[in-house]
């Protein structure tokens, strides 16, 4: 994944997952096989992951996502960028998000 190209792309959750908020936690439920390392897994997002996930609407570019999060969390854009690229790589590898 080339970060410079990726940052200009907008990503959205795949139609093959459903994100649920239960008891304050975001749980990603795969609808199809092969997303987890085993078929007996669900996925949870920590607070940062959740903040990023909620902005993956297929319209905002990742660069916009980073700018918004940097403002909201009063954090350095470089630090946020690493988190955003990290989660996009992980979720893309599992086919849970895709560029729009």
């Amino acid at each position, binding site marked *: 994944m080339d970060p410079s190209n990726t940052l200009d792309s907008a990503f959205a959750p795949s139609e093959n997952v459903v994100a649920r908020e239960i008891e304050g936690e975001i749980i990603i439920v795969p609808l199809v096989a092969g997303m987890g390392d085993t078929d007996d897994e669900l*996925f949870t997002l920590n607070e940062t992951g959740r903040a990023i996930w909620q902005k993956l609407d297929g319209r905002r570019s990742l660069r916009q996502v980073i700018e918004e999060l940097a403002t909201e969390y009063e954090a350095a854009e470089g630090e946020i960028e690493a988190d955003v690229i990290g989660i996009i790589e992980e979720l893309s590898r599992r086919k849970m998000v895709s560029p729009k």
Partner: protein
Amino acid sequence: MSKSLVTSIPIQELPLWEKRDMERGLFSFELELTARCTSDCRHCYIRLPADDAHARSLELQSDEIARIADEAVSLGSLWCLITGGEPLLRKDFPEIYSMLKRKGLLVSVFTNAQCITGEHVELFLKYPPRDIEITVYGVTRETYERVTRTPGSFDAFMRGLDRLMSAGIPARLKAMALRSNVSELPEIARFCRERTKDYFRFDPLLHLRFDRDPGRNEEIRSERLSPEEIAALDTADEKRAVALRSGCADLTQSGPPADANGNHLFRCGAGNGNFCVGYAGMFRLCSALCHPDCTADLRKQNLRDIRRTLVPKVRDMRSERKEYAEACGVCPLFNLCLWCPAHAHLETGQLDGSVPYFCEIAKARANALKIEN
């Protein structure tokens, strides 16, 4: 910002479960799609004929199921068990199954496998179920069809099972132990374990019918094994014996029930984090609890209100009978018994009725497992 953004967790290790146990939120529900079935099993507590037009006319439609599922999901439910009757008899099963999956539910299916088609296989490959459980009534045509009383059912079962297995769809096999198949139980266990190595369970406890049909209830009673036979089956299976001892120890070591008067009826978890939807839309705290004071109509009331009003009222029900408070209400062998208010109602018409057969089973098991009474 921290680095561990996405965590994959085995379903059984989700921290959610612990929270749910403490806060008693909703986490699962059982959905009876139909009471109709392709078989006519001697021991069945619900079965109606496959072509029963009246039963079919009462069944929840897919839009009604979607509304109930939406409510269950909004209350936090993560798991749905589709059962019946035989749920695959419904022509709209694929539509209902897919709809439940797309709501983010983990979906399990209980089936006799007799109706499994290529379309079902494609569906389960595309949207894998949490699990599929299939009951094996016998491993010979003679025994299987002695139980199901349906010619051709054994071949249909084997064909359906083969379709799933050859497509690599994992199915868990289980059995009921009854008079008509007990002689074949070792072969049934072997058959099941060969196909699902990590899992096999059998149930020798037959409860009576939800519709209280006296003729069918007599058939069920005639299929029941004796308490001594049940105890012998328990002790012959080491894992099962350990689980029963452990379950009973948990209860006996935890002291008397929360209500020291012993008149509290519900000592189980019915309705706490789960509920059951009957095929005609009846809300039940558990699948067997059909007493009219304990049910509600999901076609007329919403789930949130039912859980807020009916469930606590039922869970707080007490017996006024001294006999109950001195026997079942404080019995330390509770976990070895089939007794619960739901089954007591099916047997006696009363939620606090005593059932001598269940007492005998608990005592025979305690004796065989060397558990202090």
